[in-house]
C-alpha cells in the first residue's frame, strides 16, 4: 500500500476550500441580474383553493412577477413524478394523484406551494408573499399513518380510501405453515418514527435562461444532477435535455433528501424565462422542515416463529407506510423494494411473508432518508430477534449466532442473493471491543448508583451498490442504476476523471483520486475529480444508496483498464515493440524482458503528438469512458453494540459506549469510511433517542424548527469504538460493498435493545425521549407477552 493508494487514510483534497471558507454552495452563487423567489405556502393541511388574489402583492415594491398553478398549466408544464411503479397484490398499478409544482385547485399539506413571488430582493419577495390573498375552503385532514385508510378525508380522488398500493412479497402459504408448526411466536407492534433529513445546507436553486441560445441553466442542491435534468426535460417539460444544463456545485449534505426533483427548482428554472432574469430561491430551515421529503413513518405488526430448537422458521410482517400527500420521486420503492427484501437480516429464515400498504396522508411527502427502507427492515428484524431471545431465555448473541447464515451464496425467500459475509466474525470482534464480558459488573455498579444499565445488539445487513439495471427494471424502476466514468489523460500526464457520482460530503475528490493514483502509478496531486455538471460530465446516475464506491468507482476502474490498454498500444509504437510485449507496472510501460520503458506521462504525450503512429489503426489521444452496470447488490453487514445508562429519576438515557464492527469489503480510505460510520450512528441515535416529526391532528407540523425538532448535538453522543472485518465483495472489480448508510441502519435497534434491556420490558417506542423513558420506568409490567 502506498501512502496515497487504496487502503491509505489520505487526508482529503477537498478540505482546503472548506476550511478556508472557499467552498461554493448554491446559495453562495450570485448570478448577474438575479431576482429572488419566495413561495406562498399553504397554512392548511387540506383545503380547496377558492381564489388567489395577487393584486395587492403585485403592487408592492420590487415585485417582478407572481406566478400560480394556472400559469404553470397555461405553459403546459407537467407535474412532478414518481419514478417507480409499484403494483398491488391484485396486479393493479399504484393509485397516484397528480403533483403540480404549484397547487391547482387544492392544497394537500401544510407547506404545499401555492404561488411564487419573484422580486428584486429576498426581503421584498417575502413581504409580497405575505400579501398574496388566498381564499381557502378548509377540508378535513388525515395525518395518522394507522388511520389513513378509509379516513373521512380523501387526499386524492384517484385513491378514494387513501391507499396507494397493497403490495406484498414472499410466500404466504409457506410462512403460514411455519407459524402453524412453531413452538414459539413473538409478536411486536412497531412504530418507525417520522424523521426530517436535515442536511445543514438547506435546498436552493437558481434558474437561468439564455434568450440568445434558448438554453436553460439550473444551479441546484442535487445528489444527482443528470437525473434532475432528465426529469425536468422528459417528464416536466421545461426544456429539451440538450438545452438544459444542471449544475450541482458543492452540496452541504443530502442523506437522500436531495435526490428528489422538487417543486421549487422546477419553478425557478421555468420562472427564469418568464421574467427574463435568473431566479434564485434558498429554503429557510422552517421551509426545509415543511417541504423537504421526510423519512420513515411506518406502523408495523411483526411476528417471528421459532421451532423447538431455537431456530427461526418464519417471519411475518404487515406494514402501513405513510407516503405523505404526494408521491415523491422514489417514495413508492422505499417501503417496498428497499424494505421487505431485507427482512431476512443476517438470518437463515426459510419462510418470510411481508405485506405493505402505502397510504396517502395530509403530510409532507415521505421518501428516501439515509438507509431508505433498510433501517425500517433492520429495526423490525433486530427488535424481533432480541425480544425472541429474551422470551426464550437465551443469550441474544448466542441466539443470533445460532441463526446466522453461514454458507454463501445464500438465496433468501425475499429476492436477495447474499454473495458473501462472515457474520460471526463481526459479532465476536464487536463483543470483544465492547467488553461484553464486563457488562455484568458495570450493571451492578450502575445499580449501586441507582441507575439502570442495559446492552443491546444489532446485527444488520443492507443491500447497497444500487443496483443491477435489469433487476430494478423488472421491479418497476423507471431508470437503470449503472454508473458512468470518463478518464481523460492530458498530454502532460495529469488526469481528469469525470464521474456520474456526486459528492456532498463523501470525499470522492480524494477516494476516487486514490484509485486512479494507485492503478496508474501517478501522483495523487495530478488527478482531478470532476462531477456535478451535466455540461461537463457524461450522463450518470448520482450518489445515494451507498453506490458511489461499489458502482461509481467500478466504472472508473473499467475506464482505467481501457486507458492502460490504449497506453500499451501507444507505448508499442513509441518503443517500436510489439503490443503483446508491453507491460504496465508501477506507472511505467515496459518492454518485457528489457530495460526499455516509458513513464506514464511520456506515453500520454506520445498519444497526443502521435508522431510515431503509422497508418490509421491507432487513433491519437488518451481518453476512455465506461459504463458499469453491477451484476448484484452488495451486502455490507456488521454488528453494533450499544450500552446505555438510564437515570430513572429524570428518564435521561446516556449512551455509555457504542461499538460498531462493519464488513464493507475492500476499503479505499479507512479515515473516510470511519467518518461515514460515525455520522450514520449519530443519525441512528438521533432517531432512537430524540428525533421525531410530529403533526398535530389538524396537520400542523409542530416540530418545524431546531427549537422543536431535536437534532443530536455533540453532548448527546459519546466517542464511538469502530472496528472492521472484511470479506471482499465478489461482484465488482474492486471488492467494495459501501459504507454510507450502515450506522443509520444499525444504530436504532442497538439503542432500543439496550434501553429495553435496562427497563426490563419492551413497552417503549422511538424516540425514547427522557419523558418517554421516565414513563416507561414507571410502567413495570411487560406489555408484550409471548403468544
Amino acid at each position, binding site marked *: 500500500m502506498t501512502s496515497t493508494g487504496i487502503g491509505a487514510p489520505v487526508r482529503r483534497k477537498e478540505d482546503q476550500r472548506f476550511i478556508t471558507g472557499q467552498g461554493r454552495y448554491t446559495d453562495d452563487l450570485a448570478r448577474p441580474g438575479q431576482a429572488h423567489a419566495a413561495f406562498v405556502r399553504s397554512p392548511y393541511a387540506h383545503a380547496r383553493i377558492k381564489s388567489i388574489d395577487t393584486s395587492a402583492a403585485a403592487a408592492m415594491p420590487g415585485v417582478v412577477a407572481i406566478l400560480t398553478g394556472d400559469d404553470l398549466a397555461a405553459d403546459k408544464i407537467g407535474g412532478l413524478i414518481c419514478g417507480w411503479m409499484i403494483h398491488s397484490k391484485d396486479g393493479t398499478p399504484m393509485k397516484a394523484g397528480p403533483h403540480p409544482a404549484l397547487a391547482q385547485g387544492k392544497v394537500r399539506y401544510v407547506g404545499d406551494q401555492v404561488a411564487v413571488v419573484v422580486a428584486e430582493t429576498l426581503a421584498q419577495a417575502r413581504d409580497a408573499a405575505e400579501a398574496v390573498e388566498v381564499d381557502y375552503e378548509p377540508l378535513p385532514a388525515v395525518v395518522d399513518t394507522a388511520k389513513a385508510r378509509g379516513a373521512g378525508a380523501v387526499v386524492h380522488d384517484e385513491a378514494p380510501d387513501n391507499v396507494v398500493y397493497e403490495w406484498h412479497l414472499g410466500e404466504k402459504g409457506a410462512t403460514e405453515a411455519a407459524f402453524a408448526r412453531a413452538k414459539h411466536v413473538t409478536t411486536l407492534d412497531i412504530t418507525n418514527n417520522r424523521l426530517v433529513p436535515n442536511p*445543514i445546507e438547506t435546498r436552493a436553486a437558481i434558474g437561468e435562461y439564455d434568450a440568445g441560445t434558448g438554453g436553460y441553466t439550473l444551479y441546484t442542491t442535487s445528489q444527482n444532477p443528470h437525473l434532475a435534468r432528465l426529469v425536468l426535460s422528459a417528464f416536466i417539460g421545461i426544456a429539451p435535455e440538450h438545452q438544459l444544463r444542471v449544475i450541482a456545485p458543492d452540496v452541504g449534505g443530502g442523506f437522500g433528501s436531495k435526490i428528489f426533483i422538487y417543486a421549487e427548482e422546477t419553478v425557478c428554472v421555468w420562472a427564469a424565462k418568464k421574467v427574463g432574469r435568473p431566479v434564485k430561491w434558498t429554503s429557510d430551515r422552517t421551509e426545509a422542515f415543511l417541504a423537504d421529503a421526510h423519512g420513515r413513518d411506518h406502523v408495523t405488526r411483526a411476528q417471528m416463529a421459532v421451532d423447538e430448537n431455537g431456530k427461526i422458521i418464519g417471519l411475518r410482517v404487515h406494514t402501513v407506510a405513510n407516503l405523505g400527500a404526494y408521491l415523491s420521486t422514489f417514495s413508492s420503492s422505499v417501503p417496498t423494494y428497499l424494505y421487505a427484501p431485507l427482512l431476512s437480516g443476517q438470518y437463515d429464515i426459510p419462510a418470510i411473508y411481508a405485506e405493505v400498504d402505502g397510504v396517502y396522508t395530509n403530510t409532507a411527502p415521505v421518501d428516501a432518508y439515509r438507509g431508505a427502507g433498510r433501517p425500517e427492515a433492520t429495526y423490525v428484524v433486530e427488535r424481533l430477534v432480541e425480544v425472541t431471545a429474551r422470551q426464550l431465555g437465551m443469550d441474544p448473541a448466542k441466539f443470533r449466532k445460532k441463526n446466522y447464515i453461514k454458507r454463501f451464496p445464500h438465496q433468501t425467500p425475499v429476492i436477495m442473493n447474499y454473495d458473501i459475509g462472515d457474520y460471526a466474525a463481526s459479532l465476536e470482534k464487536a463483543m470483544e471491543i465492547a467488553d461484553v464480558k464486563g457488562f455484568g459488573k458495570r450493571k451492578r455498579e450502575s445499580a449501586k448508583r441507582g441507575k439502570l444499565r442495559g446492552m443491546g445488539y444489532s446485527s444488520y445487513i443492507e443491500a447497497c451498490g444500487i443496483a443491477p439495471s435489469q433487476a430494478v427494471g423488472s421491479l418497476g424502476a423507471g431508470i437503470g442504476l449503472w454508473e458512468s466514468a470518463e478518464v481523460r489523460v492530458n498530454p502532460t500526464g495529469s488526469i481528469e476523471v469525470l464521474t456520474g457520482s456526486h459528492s456532498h460530503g463523501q470525499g470522492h475528490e480524494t477516494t476516487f483520486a486514490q484509485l486512479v493514483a494507485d492503478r496508474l502509478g501517478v501522483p495523487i496531486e495530478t488527478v482531478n475529480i470532476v462531477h456535478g455538471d451535466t455540461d461537463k460530465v457524461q450522463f450518470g446516475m448520482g450518489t445515494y444508496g451507498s453506490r458511489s464506491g461499489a458502482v461509481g468507482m467500478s466504472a472508473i476502474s473499467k475506464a482505467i483498464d481501457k486507458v492502460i490498454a490504449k497506453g500499451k498500444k501507444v507505448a508499442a509504437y513509441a518503443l517500436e515493440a510489439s503490443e503483446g510485449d508491453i507491460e504496465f507496472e508501477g506507472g511505467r510501460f515496459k518492454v518485457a524482458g528489457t530495460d526499455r520503458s516509458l513513464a506514464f506521462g511520456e506515453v500520454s504525450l506520445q498519444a497526443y503528438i502521435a508522431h510515431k503512429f503509422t497508418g490509421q489503426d491507432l487513433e491519437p489521444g488518451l481518453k476512455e469512458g465506461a459504463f458499469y452496470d453491477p451484476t448484484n447488490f452488495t451486502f455490507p453487514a456488521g454488528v453494533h453494540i450499544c450500552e446505555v445508562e438510564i437515570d430513572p429519576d429524570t428518564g435521561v438515557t446516556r449512551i455509555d459506549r457504542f461499538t460498531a464492527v462493519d464488513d464493507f469489503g475492500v476499503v479505499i480510505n479507512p479515515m473516510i469510511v470511519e*467518518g461515514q460510520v460515525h455520522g450514520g450512528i449519530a443519525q441512528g441515535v438521533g432517531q432512537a433517542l430524540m428525533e421525531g416529526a410530529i403533526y398535530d391532528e389538524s396537520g400542523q407540523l409542530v416540530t418545524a424548527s431546531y427549537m422543536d425538532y431535536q437534532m443530536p448535538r*455533540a453532548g448527546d453522543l459519546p466517542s464511538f469504538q469502530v472496528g472492521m472485518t472484511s470479506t471482499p465483495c465478489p461482484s465488482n472489480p474492486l471488492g467494495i460493498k459501501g459504507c454510507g448508510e450502515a450506522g443509520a441502519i444499525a444504530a436504532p435497534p442497538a439503542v432500543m435493545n439496550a434501553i429495553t434491556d435496562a427497563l426490563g420490558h419492551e413497552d417503549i417506542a422511538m424516540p425514547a425521549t427522557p419523558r418517554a423513558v421516565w414513563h416507561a420506568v414507571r410502567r413495570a409490567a411487560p406489555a408484550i407477552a409471548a403468544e
Partner: protein
Amino acid sequence: MAIVSMTVNGKAVTADIDPRTLLVQFLREHLRLTGTHVGCDTSQCGACVVHMNGAAVKACTTLALQADGAAVTTIEGLADGADLHPMQAAFREHHGLQCGYCTPGMIMTAVDMVNRLGGDLSEETIRAELEGNICRCTGYHNIVRAVETGAKAMAGGEPVRQAAE
C-alpha cells in the same frame, strides 16, 4: 437606509444598508464573503459563527448595525496568508468535516473556545461547548479530536502534523 462601518478581516468597510440587514447577510451578500453560512432560522446551528471584537457571535442573530465600529473576523480571515490557522489544520488532519457546511462555524467556535478556556480541553468540555453548533455529517467524533489537537497547537504545543494528501 443606514450607514454601517466596520473592519472585516482587517479591511475597513462602509455601506449604506437596509437597517434590517443581518450581519450574515451583510457579509455574504454585500461583501461576498460566503464562507459564513446559514443553516437555520432560530439561532441554533452555529453555521454562521464569526468573531466580533474577538468573541464568537452568531451572525444570523446579529444586525449588521450592531457590528458598527466593530472588528469582525470570518473564516476567510483566519489563515495567515497561505498558512492555515492551527484549528483549520486540525480539522483537516482529523477529518473533522464531511460536507463542509457546518465547518466554518465549527472552526470559529473552536477558536473562541480556546481563547476563553485555554488549550487543555477535556472531551466533556469540548462537547458541552459545542452545544450551539450542529453537524449532521460527522457525528462529532472527529470534530472533538480536531478541537483537542487544534487547541493544543494554539496553546503553543505541537504544530498539527500534516499527513500526505
